[in-house]
């Protein structure tokens, strides 16, 4: 057995892998939050609940309709995205002229409703979701064992993150979006339907959360409270990274996941709190966040 700094390499790399997995979810969720905040000026507190919804829709599809993981990977983001579009149409659109805080309060209420409903029907305990057959098993890399499913989650979330970055930063559609973020009135004057863009942006951001939920289902148990604890950590990630930059959100998400994984190896007592501690340090040294512009 190889040892690094007195820690067996399999434990070290195992935790690093777990950290990367957590990092994938931090990145996907904070990316969604940043995209939504950019367009709607609303911090989507129900993001965690919508992530949980994604996991549950995947679970229900498998349980009752016998629709497997791969189909769920496509269906779930669409379903969750559509609920997001309905939420935007019914509730959020009334808040754009008001203080940001009302958006936070409304989506907090939504999160309570969504979580409460799922807890009523499915109880608080976790439900298992099996890893799809084609991704079962794993590779022995010599210094560690790499389960196929986990490798897939990391690779796929990297692809999604960079695809999102590419669309927003490098395409024409993305340039409309960025322009509408800066000055919606002017963009409307050019004949672009900004309200529809806002609706679709919220649907997209929420769909990303749903997608993260499907990917998380086989790793963590599917449970009603899986989102609420995660979303608070993601808030800390967003404070650390700042919401001004898409690439910043991705890098901060993965970076903090890795740091959290390493903390589990070297100082396990602090693994729950390390991200919050980093947030405090960042606030002291760079109050605007690592990638943020000073307000």
């Amino acid at each position: 057995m190889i040892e690094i700094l007195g820690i067996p390499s399999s434990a070290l790399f195992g935790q690093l892998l777990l950290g990367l997995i957590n990092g994938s979810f931090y990145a996907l969720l904070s990316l969604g939050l940043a995209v939504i905040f950019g367009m709607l000026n609303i911090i989507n507190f129900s993001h965690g609940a919508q992530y949980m919804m994604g996991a549950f829709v995947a679970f229900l599809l498998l349980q009752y309709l016998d629709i497997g993981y791969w189909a769920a990977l496509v269906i779930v983001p669409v379903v969750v995205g559509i609920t997001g579009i309905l939420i935007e149409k019914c509730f959020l659109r009334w808040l754009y002229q008001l203080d940001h805080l009302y958006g936070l309060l409304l989506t907090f209420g939504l999160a309570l409703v969504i979580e409460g409903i799922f807890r009523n029907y499915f109880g608080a305990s976790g439900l298992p979701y099996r890893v799809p057959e084609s991704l079962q098993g794993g590779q022995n890399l010599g210094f560690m064992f790499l389960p196929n499913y986990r490798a897939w989650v990391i690779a796929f979330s990297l692809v999604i993150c960079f695809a999102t970055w590419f669309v927003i930063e490098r395409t024409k559609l993305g340039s409309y979006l960025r322009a509408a973020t800066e000055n919606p009135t002017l963009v409307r004057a050019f004949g672009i339907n900004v309200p529809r863009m806002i609706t679709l942006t919220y649907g997209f951001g929420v769909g990303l959360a749903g997608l993260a939920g499907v990917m998380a289902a086989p790793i963590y148990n599917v449970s009603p409270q899986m989102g609420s604890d995660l979303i608070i950590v993601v808030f800390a990630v967003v404070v650390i990274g700042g919401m001004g930059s898409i690439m910043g959100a991705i890098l901060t998400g993965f970076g903090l996941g890795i740091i959290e994984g390493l903390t589990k190896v070297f100082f396990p007592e602090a693994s729950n709190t390390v991200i919050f501690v980093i947030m405090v340090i960042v606030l002291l040294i760079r109050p605007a966040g690592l990638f943020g512009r000073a307000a």
Partner: protein
Amino acid sequence: MQPVTGILKAPPHATFAVSETLAFAIMIAALLVAPFYIYPVFLMKALCFALFACAFNLLIGYVGLLSFGHALFFGWAAYVAAHAAKVWGLTPELAVLAGTAVGAGLGFVTGALAIRRQGIYFAMITLALAQMMYFFALRMNFTGGEDGIQAVPRGRLFGVIDLSNQMAMYGFVLVVFLAAFLLIYRIIHSPFGEVLKAIRENETRAISLGYKTDRYKLIAFVLSATLAGLAGSVKAIVFQLASLTDVHWTMSGEVVLMTLVGGLGTVFGPVVGAIIIVAMQTYLAEFGQWVTVIQGCIFIACVLLFRRGIIGELAHLLRIRL
């Protein structure tokens, strides 16, 4: 963009606040008569949460800062007060003081960190810091982890008055509540309070007028945290219990809900909101998890339909100040 309390501007002829004095008299009369008709433990719970909501309202209603981590001060003060009364054997008033002091100390540290960012980030930072302290509470030995600190003795007030008598306990809670209520009233009507309101309306202009707004925000944050700590400490003595529920983020959400229902930035709103929410939780307890769903629906309804809250709408309708 309309500030969070922009809807609260009092009508011009409402500068003379007879309405407030009258409402205060009605409140005192109701609270004096109530224990003869209503179960005192319920009343004490409502008063503790009313105090908590008033403390929270000092920050959101008068400085425009939304803290989503007030359970941190409430819960940790409850732990320290319970520990002081049970393990150190302090009399209840000293235990409450110890808890309140801890609320103040935590408020200073949290506030100093959180005011480094504005608006929406402020809410996220307070929430994250509260979650961090929740994990500490879960792990530390003196908090009792999942069990909390149970069977805290109520003890004898000043070593004389036996608080295991419900009426004596109610009297103590009532006096603490009224003292804190009057203190908050005094703060928001002082020159200091006027500066806070100026920061709420237009921070940039307050800065240009030469006010060190960060210092004012920090003082307001510490005051709010101290009073939240007072509420938590008294709650720990009344219920003889400090537990993880008190530090959990759902508690932070509840105090936001109480204040929102009653009316942000109104003097009496948080009291009414707290009574309504505590009553709802008590009488709807049989519905179990649906209470969370109902609370969520109230949140949505308040934000969409009546942002002034009950007291705010009433004051607006009658064109008075409450």
